């Protein structure tokens, strides 16, 4: 019991330290929102903060949240870059389904090795991303329309690949990817961290990040400054497709079943939401990778909270929406200034 208490204290101390270090950063607000949500659960949801170690693995609601949020986190990484250029990619959920179907079909029907199946799935996802990029960057179609095409057609393609039925499979390698553990934590989380590392490397150690933000903030001025805006846009859609492919592989492996109808369903919306909660404006410009991951965590924590508190799945979206509105308002300068004006007395004394 006392061990548990110490664990909680350590958790909150670390969290508080992170909040303090990033108190001036954009990421402070989503982190704060997540903290409030966790605090609510700490006080009101019994068992939420329980953490067990079994066979060298961690178990508990918080670990479940990490595992469940990996899909949206992966999508959010790609989506953050796309939104950074002022675009949006609605097709990521469908691309997940296509990638999952390709992988399962290759493993089950063609007895391919998991490596080949995964590479093929990623290849298809890259091609889907390239198609989006082509439509947006080369043909100048509005991103929301261009990616809507694959959003709608993608599930049909996935159905075609899987012959219209869900494909169950059993493969050790794949189930390790989907539900295995590494260093006591879900392996999928490792994939997220590797992808985060790669994305950070490519956007911050090269000038790609600057170009993405510049194109998103002012497309014309960027072109006049010699940036190849088309190429930048093309690349981010390809990358977004790749992230969706990985998310599709993780999601399909997790349930050992490729289901063209349900894999990644509505997750494009969660991904967009995660990016927005993370502080990136839908109009493009500055994008926040870690913020987007926190956004994904927040969304999953909300869902898990609803589940833990026995809120029926039918009405769960309502409180979820209220919390998300609150988070978005919290980030708005205008709203913060409004509240600051409401509390002048507090400001003087503080």
């Amino acid at each position, binding site marked *: 019991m006392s061990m548990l208490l110490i664990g909680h204290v350590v958790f909150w101390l670390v969290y508080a330290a992170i909040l303090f270090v990033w108190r001036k950063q954009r990421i402070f607000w989503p982190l704060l929102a997540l903290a409030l949500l966790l605090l609510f659960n700490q006080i009101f949801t019994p068992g939420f903060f329980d953490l067990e170690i079994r066979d060298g693995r961690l178990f508990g609601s918080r670990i479940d949240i990490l595992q469940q949020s990996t899909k949206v986190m992966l999508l959010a990484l790609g989506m953050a870059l796309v939104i950074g250029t002022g675009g949006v990619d609605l097709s990521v959920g469908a691309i997940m389904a296509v990638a999952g179907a390709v992988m399962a079909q290759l493993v089950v029907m063609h007895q391919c090795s998991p490596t080949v199946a995964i590479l093929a799935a990623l290849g298809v996802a890259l091609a889907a991303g390239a198609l989006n990029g082509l439509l947006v960057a080369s043909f100048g179609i509005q991103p929301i329309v261009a990616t809507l095409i694959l959003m709608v057609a993608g599930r049909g393609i996935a159905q075609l690949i899987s012959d219209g039925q869900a494909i169950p499979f059993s493969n050790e390698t794949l189930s390790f990817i989907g539900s295995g553990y590494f260093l006591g934590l879900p392996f999928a989380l490792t994939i997220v961290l590797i992808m985060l590392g790669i994305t950070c490397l490519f956007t911050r*150690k*090269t*000038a*790609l990040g*600057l*170009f993405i*933000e*510049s194109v998103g*903030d*002012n497309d*014309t*001025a*960027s*072109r*006049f*400054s*010699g*940036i*190849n805006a088309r190429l930048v846009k093309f690349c981010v859609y390809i990358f977004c497709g790749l992230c969706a492919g990985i998310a599709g592989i993780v999601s399909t492996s997790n349930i050992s079943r490729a289901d063209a109808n349900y894999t990644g369903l509505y997750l494009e919306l969660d991904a967009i939401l995660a990016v927005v909660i993370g502080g990136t404006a839908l109009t493009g*410009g*500055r994008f926040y990778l870690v913020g987007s991951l926190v956004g994904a965590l927040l969304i999953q924590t909300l869902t898990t909270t609803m589940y833990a508190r026995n809120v029926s799945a039918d009405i769960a979206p309502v409180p979820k929406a209220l919390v998300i509105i609150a988070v978005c308002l919290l980030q708005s300068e205008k709203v913060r200034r409004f509240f600051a004006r409401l509390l002048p007395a507090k400001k003087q004394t503080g």
Partner: protein
Amino acid sequence: MRVLLEARGLSKSFPSVRALDGVDFTVRAGEVHALMGENGAGKSTLIKVLTGVYQRDAGDTQFEGKSINPASPRAAEACGISTVYQEVNLIPHLSVAENICLGRQPTRIGMIRWGAIRERARKALARLDLNIDVNRQLSSYSIAVQQMVALARALDVSAKLLILDEPTSSLDEREVAELFKVISKLRDEGMGIVFVTHFLDQVYAVSDRITVLRNGALVGEYPVAELPRLHLIAHMIGKPVEEVEAMSHPHRDEEERLPSTPFMSVVNYGRTGSIQPFDLAIRPGEVVGLAGLLGSGRTEIARLLFGVDKADSGEMQVGGNVVRINSPRAAMRYKIAFTTEDRKAQGIIPNLSIRENIVLALQASRGAWRKISRIKQDELADRFIKALGIKTPGPEQLIKNLSGGNQQKVLLARWLATEPNLLILDEPTRGIDVGAKAEIEKLIASLRKDGMAILFISSELEEVVRDSQRVLVLRDRKVVGELIGDQITERAIMNTIAAPTPEGTAA
């Protein structure tokens, strides 16, 4: 002639500016009345007040003897005042007939009578001697035809006064001539026509009377025959005619020895509908000024040289080699830089820092992979903030928080960081305070001394005269003259702008 519209003492203020200040304006039936003035003179505001887009603050408008105060463009149309705007503001995806009758479709028990619409559209177009298929989508026709359709729409409501707001800005010469034929025809039918344009030749080709505005106030109303071009220009820019005529030669430094080989030269370079073919050579250490009224083709030349627009005639040489520049990236490879006229839309990246805005072009020319290290970025930013005197709390300040002059300096820094051989400056001093203006002019002089070639575009003739070794004068999208050394005076520039050309008046 019968007076059609008589406005007295019209005033209109906006929060920060008095756009119209007691302006009188009279249009008679059966005349073409040109409304002239520089940008911001109040032409658009006057038109918008007359057509009900804005409500006047003071004054009175009499139309055919009755006092009117239209509350909307529709109300103005009902009185008999119709307008054709600069940009065709029709709906491209609807048919020609639908566009002409939109919002006033003939109906029978609430159902649209398509036959009647087509018939009406055909009649309206026939009046303009235009015979086209009214069922086809509007966007399938050229801009000139679309302009005519807009005109037909304006005439469809038994208009007595027709206002044309820069109707010719996107038309070529032949199309302009076509439009003028129609205008003359309508005038002969007794319609009053108000014509707004930047093209002097067109004013003299088609108008009977000219009203000049400046800074929101009326300068005067003149019959065309009594207002020579030089006087018109003097009125527009607000200098007494005598002063314009007697303008003295400014003191000029002794012509320095310039290398004889140009850094860049173009021969017969042009683009249809944008700028007529021109020749230009610019040597290292030389400032070439482009002078001309707004819309005369100055920016078009800059865009062409920087590869924003592609030339469809002529050839360009850089350093003696024939090159093709068809994108800004290509221009940058040849060390050409371009600060645009529209800082906000085409220059700054508003939500990025000063540092990022400064390194942007240099980074773009290096490509994404060879990132400029943060240390180098900070050095660059600090150096230019100091060198150009950019007033900011620090390099991490967002550029959108700076004043116009400081934003302009950051954009200059962005291009100077790429160490260009040719710097194209389009209105670098527009909208910035006097101090910053002087600093930028000083900078131009020192860059020139260091051997940079500079193409300098400015609406302020004094600046062009002060800073340039050579000036190309433009009118109506055409280079109409070149002045060198001591020939460069404000008066010479204005004389060149005002000199009539046979082709222009033939329209």
